[in-house]
Each structure stands twice: as structure tokens, then as C-alpha cells.
């Protein structure tokens, strides 16, 4: 079980393409991955669900918490961290 706390600096927040990329990245792993908007506290959503992620309402400079649990949680966490911290360029 791992938890990440990441800041989303992208202009559009976690919407549109960044959201799609986030979901695509999470979907590549077996681990159960959840996310929530830590700045505007709300519910956890399945990080592999594009609809869930869109409803988080993550805007620029919001922070998200990502919860991972499963055999490949370490590489999953690394991939998601890299994705968000590189502002969705890798």
C-alpha cells in the first residue's frame, strides 16, 4: 500500500488530455489505484475511470492524493509520479 501526494500544475488541471493520460497510465497496472482531490476534499475515485477522474474537479495547483495497492504498486506509483511531476510530458 502506497500513498502519493502530488501537485497538478497543468493549465487545464486534471482534465482533457492530462486526465486521459493519467487514466491510461493507471490502467496499465494491476494494482488497485484510487485518487482524490486533496485541495477540495471529496470522495475517492477509481484512477482507471476517466469519468471518475474528471469529476474530481482538479484545477491547476490543486493537490491530489493517490492510493495504490497491489503487486505492481511500486512501478505504478513511480509512473504516475513521473507523469504528474513532469507536467504530463512523459
Amino acid at each position: 500500500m502506497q500513498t502519493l501526494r502530488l501537485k497538478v500544475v497543468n493549465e487545464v488541471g486534471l482534465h482533457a488530455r492530462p486526465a486521459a493520460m493519467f487514466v491510461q497510465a493507471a490502467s496499465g497496472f494491476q494494482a488497485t489505484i484510487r485518487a482524490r482531490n486533496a485541495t477540495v476534499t471529496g470522495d475517492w475515485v477509481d484512477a482507471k475511470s476517466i469519468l471518475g477522474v474528471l469529476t474530481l474537479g482538479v484545477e491547476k495547483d490543486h493537490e491530489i492524493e493517490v492510493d495504490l495497492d497491489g503487486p505492481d504498486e511500486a512501478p505504478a506509483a513511480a509512473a504516475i509520479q513521473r507523469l504528474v511531476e513532469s507536467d504530463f510530458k512523459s
Partner: protein
Amino acid sequence: MRTMKGIPASPGIQQAPAWKYESDDIEVSRAPVGDPSSEWQRLTHALERARSQVAEIHIRALSEVGSSEAAIFEAHRMFLEDPALLARARQGIFQSEISAEAAWAEGFEYYAAKLEGLGDELLRARAADVRDVGALVLRILLGRERSSKPSPSAPSIVIARDLTPSDTIGLDRAFVRGFATMEGGPTSHTAILAKALQLPAVVGLGQRLFEVDDGALVLIDGERGEIVVEPDVAAAEAFARRSKEVQRIEQEASEHAEEPAQTTDGHRVEVVANIGRVEEARAAIGLGAEGVGLLRTEFLYLERSYAPSEEEQLHAYGEILDAFESRPVVVRTLDAGGDKELRYLDPTPEANPFLGWRAIRLCLDRPDLFKTQLRALLRASVGHDLRIMFPMVAILDEVRRAKNLLYEARKEVEAAGHRTASAIQVGIMVEVPAVAVMADQFAREVDFLSIGTNDLTQYTMAAERTNQRVAYLGDACHPAVLRQIRGVIKAGHQAGIWVGLCGELAGDPQGIPILLGLGLDEFSMAPGFIPHAKALIRKWSFAGARELAALALDLDSAPAVRAAVAASSPA
């Protein structure tokens, strides 16, 4: 009689009875049903059907309107694969024991409502998309795969609250003469798709549109952004006059469509078609196409889980080339991206797929994929004037490597005992500004240059055509784009090669005189624009067009250029 003013979305003038497109307010009962596992099966089957329908619509949209406009269907596809939505529906079926329809409807409505509630205008548009896709699945479950009124069965003006992309593409176009919607803006999906389909559209007409009765006669003027419902005698006469004039022009244009496009002082240019499917080929020839300036090949690669084989491609290219006999056909090699469009390749997410690993970049990294296409093209070339064009080239090295692979492919084809045409022209698309700027160097290594103004404009003005907020910047008549075009044509001619243009500008009545004056050799456009383009070219003198072009390139904005063309006289 009522006159309603809205926002002009797509030009054209038509008259036909109104056909109201009701969005289904499908009533779904929450009553418990007997058999959860069979309800679950029904849902999963319906979802499979929905996915393949969205895939079909996506391909159709891609060949009719282009990939940025068609991208909306990508989002639809993602929704249909959303695990949380599916889980919600599953819960409804197994725990609340409600029907598949009820469980699915509750599921997608939950998300649509949540997205709407977030207040952002873009998210509200997403909510509408979720409902669009949700309704598609519901109709399948209810055995009503089109809405209760599938499509107009007589010429009609379609009246709706708003039209989703699937609505617009899904309607049987045989009887649609125009669109009028309550909502929507100038760059909404309705506008973009109507323009691409060359049908008049007026949007943002407001609630009053509701009052129009089914079957009431409607006059629509897309350019003025107006509709007239149940015109009185005076209005009907004015319309009849205007429309007669337009028809006369159209008639003349089509009567002479097969004649060459030659200016009054004897300068001749080639007018050819942009097509994406076999069905468009025959229609294009009927409209006066002298060949193909852009054959899009993506339809063979998308919406599937593995690349098309050489044989499959050979068959498809063969059909299209046969339709054109010995007329020149310029085929653009694969111009799609690796991130989501071609799932069977590397699915690494990219922040900016349109600036990323796609087109020639992808093909050079995947020589097996690329050479399969090249071999199929080479084999199909026998007895035809096939020309090959590489998309999104940015540096000379790409041209050289692509030509090498073509050479290898030819060797492979010959070794396998097949024949190929002996001389095949090889060219590149000029859409990356770097190539426009260095056109002189590229011109030395190819047999032709084809300017893709749609993307060239996007890259030059750093603005997406389909982004409503910045679409106003993406006008190919901007002098910055025109000057690049001038440079490319000059460079091509200096190297002794021909230069064509396959973006929207080639069919734009305000772009044509300038391009003519800049010395463009080949104008490639959607087939519907061909008769008009030829008719327009015949009205101009080359000398006059040259003068206009020189003037236009010194102006400082796209509107100024358009005004100058509008104010000019062809002689």
C-alpha cells in the same frame, strides 16, 4: 411567418420542411426484474455493439471531416470503457435487481450530473457527451437503435435543441438540407461538421425554435444566420430569387465541371480531390476532379487491434486507383499517432499527441509497418499514375530515410515477382513551418510539394481549429501563412517541380484567387467544392490574380486579406 436570427454556423441557402429531431427522453422503469445475470449479459452485449458503432462513426467522421474534428469520438470510446461506470451499472443489476436499461441509465446520469455540477463550461459539454453515448447504449438495449424517427425520408431542414457529433454524422444525408439548433456557437460541433459536409447551419436560435412545427416550410440562410418559418409571399419570392441565382451558378459550375480550370488569359491549373474512401472516388470524378491530390489512408489502420496486411491494403488502394484510371492520384502515407489512435503500437501517453510521435516519425520508427504500406502501394501502382507523399516531414533526414525505405520496398516487391509502375513521383506535405522556411532545400530532394494549410496554419498561429476559444486565430488567409505559401511555390518552381495545396484554403473562394496569383499548380479540395473552384478560376485572369496576391501579402491580418479579395474584381 416568423424570422429567427441565430449565429451563422455554415454557409448555404436551402428551403425544405422542418424535421424535428427529438432527443429521446427515454423513460426507463426502476421496477425490479427477474434475472440479474441475463440483464448483465444484455448490458455487456449492448456495450459491445455500442463500441463498434462508435468505432464506425469515428472512421466515417475521420474520412469525412478530418482527425481533429473526429477526436470527439475518441472521448466517447473512453466513456464506454470506463470501469467505474460499468461497476455502477453492475451494482444496479445485481444488488438493486433493476433492468439493464435502468442500471445503465442511472450509472451514466450520475456522472453526467456530477460533471454538470462542476460548473465549468467545458465539463458541461462533457456531460452532454456522456449522455450522448449513454443514450446510444440505451437505444440498443431497448431495440430502438435509431431514435423513433430515424432519419428524414424527404428533403428536410433538421431542427434540434443541439446536435451531437454522432447525431450529425449518423443522419442519413440523402435528405438533410440543413441544420437549425437552439443551442451552440460558431465553432461548436454542429458548425464544424456542417461545414465539412457543406450543408447550411444556423445555431443559437434559442427557445423560440421549439415553436416550429414539424413539416413547416423553413428557409435557411447559413451565411446570414437566419431562418424564416412559413414564409409569406414576399419572403418566399425573395428567397426564390436568391436561390435561383445560387442554383444558376451551381448549374453552370457543374455543367462545366469537367472542363479544365483555365484563366481568361490561358493559365491552366489542376483541380483535384481530397478523398478518404472508395465511395468518394466516383462522386469526385462526376464533380470534375482531374485526379486526387490527397488520398487519406488512415481508414485502413484505425479502429482495429492489428495493422492491415499488405493484401488488404493492396485491395483497397487498387479499388480507388481503378476508379481514377490514369488520372494522377497522390496517396499520403499513414498520418496517425501512436498514443491512442493506433493502440496496437506503443501506447505511451503523450501530452501533445498532435506534436508527438505520429505520421512519418512513427513510420520511420516502425519500418515493417511502413514498408508494408509502401509495398502495397507499389503493387497497386501498375497501370496508374500513383504518387506517394509523406506527411508531417520536419527535417531532410526524414525524407532521405523514407525514400530509402521506399527503394527497399520496391526491391522486395520485385523479388517477390510483382510488377510496379516504373516511374512513381515522390513528394512531401509541407505542414511543418520548418519545411516551409527551408523549402528550397526540400525541393531539391522530391518530385513535388503539397502544402497542408490546415496544419500549417495551426502550427504557425499556435492555435487549434477545434478549440472554440482560439479558433478565430486559425485562418489560413493570414499573411503569415500566405507568405509561407509564396515561398514554397517559389522554391518548388525554382527546383523545377510542381507545388499543390490540399488544405481547406484550396476550396475557399477567398483563398483561390490569391493561390492562383501565387502560381499554385494544383488545387486539391473536398469534391463538393470542385465545380465552384473551377468556375471561379475561369473568371480570373492570371495577371489580375498576381496583382491581388501581391497586394494581399502586404496586408496585416486575415480579415483584411478576405476583405481585399471580396472587394476585388476578377478581370
